[in-house]
């Protein structure tokens, strides 16, 4: 296990020294995805705002003010779309990078960081939209917002680990690309992205409390919506992140040299 961890740290430190590579490639990726479009990456902002608007229009609970629900959905969709993109793109990461993996000696973590940075850049446009919605919905900018920022940073910390775990999953079990895709589509309805837990419905209560993604959402949302520090959500998210990192390091250390034979 020690050898595996050393191997993983070696891969990560080499990737960090090559940061110019993944920064350049991630920027190229974003540019390529929006090349020749009129709005360019601003489409990411338009898509996000359109989604929030649609959800607020369709799902706003009776008796709840539109502004408060807009803020609730805006943060929920921001975090959920980010996590969903990270996980769904990760399962096919090594297959997409096949020519690089079979033709260069770049450490695997370079591809992890390339996808991570790409997802962060895309989320940046959604964050701009989210802040605008929060301001327009009348959410007062206050000190608890710093806890939301800490929540975002915690999600950022967990991102490379999530990518690594899902990338290895996709390499070992190609079927998981479809399974994860389907689970994420269904998972949106079992995660409090746009619905609120009223603790009355047992299924809803179960989906709220036993779904780890609930806590990833709540560490960003509760400080802004309720003005409180969600200690329980932070604890669960920190533990989940550390657990994911432990799995990621073991996979990276143990199997990084096998990936080239699997893809």
């Amino acid at each position, binding site marked *: 296990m020690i050898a595996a961890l050393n191997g993983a740290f070696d891969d990560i430190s080499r990737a960090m020294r090559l940061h*110019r*590579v993944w920064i*350049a490639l991630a920027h*190229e990726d974003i540019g390529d995805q929006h090349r020749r479009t009129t709005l360019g990456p601003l489409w990411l902002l338009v898509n996000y705002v359109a989604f929030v608007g649609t959800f607020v229009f369709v799902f706003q609970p009776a008796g709840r003010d539109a502004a408060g629900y807009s803020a609730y959905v805006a943060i929920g969709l921001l975090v959920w779309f980010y996590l969903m993109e990270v996980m769904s793109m990760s399962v096919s990461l090594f297959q997409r990078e096949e020519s690089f993996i*079979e*033709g*260069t000696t770049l450490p695997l973590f370079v591809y992890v960081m390339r996808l991570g940075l790409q997802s962060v850049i895309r989320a940046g446009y959604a964050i701009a939209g989210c802040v605008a919605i929060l301001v327009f919905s009348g959410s007062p900018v206050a000190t608890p917002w710093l806890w939301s920022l800490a929540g975002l940073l915690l999600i950022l910390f967990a991102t490379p680990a999530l990518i690594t775990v899902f990338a290895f999953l996709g390499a070992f079990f*190609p079927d998981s690309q479809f399974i994860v895709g389907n689970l994420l589509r269904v998972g949106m309805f079992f995660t409090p992205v746009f619905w609120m837990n009223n603790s009355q419905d047992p299924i809803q209560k179960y989906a709220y409390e036993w779904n780890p993604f609930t806590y990833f959402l709540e560490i960003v949302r509760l400080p802004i919506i309720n003005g409180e520090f969600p200690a329980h959500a932070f604890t669960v998210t920190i533990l989940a992140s550390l657990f994911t990192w432990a799995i990621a390091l073991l996979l990276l250390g143990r199997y990084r040299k096998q990936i*080239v*034979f699997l893809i």
Partner: protein
Amino acid sequence: MVSIKLNNVSLVYKLHEKLTLSAPDRRVAGPGGRIEGSGRKQFVQALDGVSFDLKAGDRLGLVGPNGAGKTTLLKVLYGIYEPTDGSVDIEGKVDALFNINIGFRREATGRRNIVLRGLISGWTEAEIEEKMEDIIAFSELGDFIDLPFKAYSQGMAARLAFSAATALDPEILLMDEWIGAGDASFQEKAKRRMDELAEKAGIIVLASHSEALIQSVCTKKLTLRSGRIESFTTEPVKRVGAVAKSS
């Protein structure tokens, strides 16, 4: 001192079968190593007990039929594949040209692609900047260098790839069938650059099916068959004349 030393290198990997509706006995194995085992536990013996030494100035030609292990051996030398047995000792800065499209983005210009290729090879931005004009001049791409890579022909892509790969004077250069895409004048120019590289006490390892290319570029020839060395001849070509069988 630049050198390559392989001692009894073997590479075995497990075949990860995809689910298929075909009956197992009707599936035909393609070329590439020897397949051992049966059912879901099949292994490919891609290299088997490969040993040789190369020293500064050597130019090794790798030959053999499809699936003999030429590309696998190059990838072991580059560090992409980790051998399952034996040892690989390499002294010197290695660069490789396996696939001319590696590191090149279709939408980016040739100039931007030189930057990306350089970063992937571990160059600093200063080194890329310093070599940029040399690479463009050697590639003879002219104004095309500022057009997107997707506008290039295969031959133009090969020119750019070769110019970039050899620009920083790698001490060891590994190449896999790269030259077929370039035209005759560029092949001649590329050969001169390889001569210069080898004369600066470098090592070149070139895998090819072209006997003429091997004869004109290489000073040693290693023939592989089913992952094993069939023959290793030194000084085989017009350069020296006599062909001595060393192992």
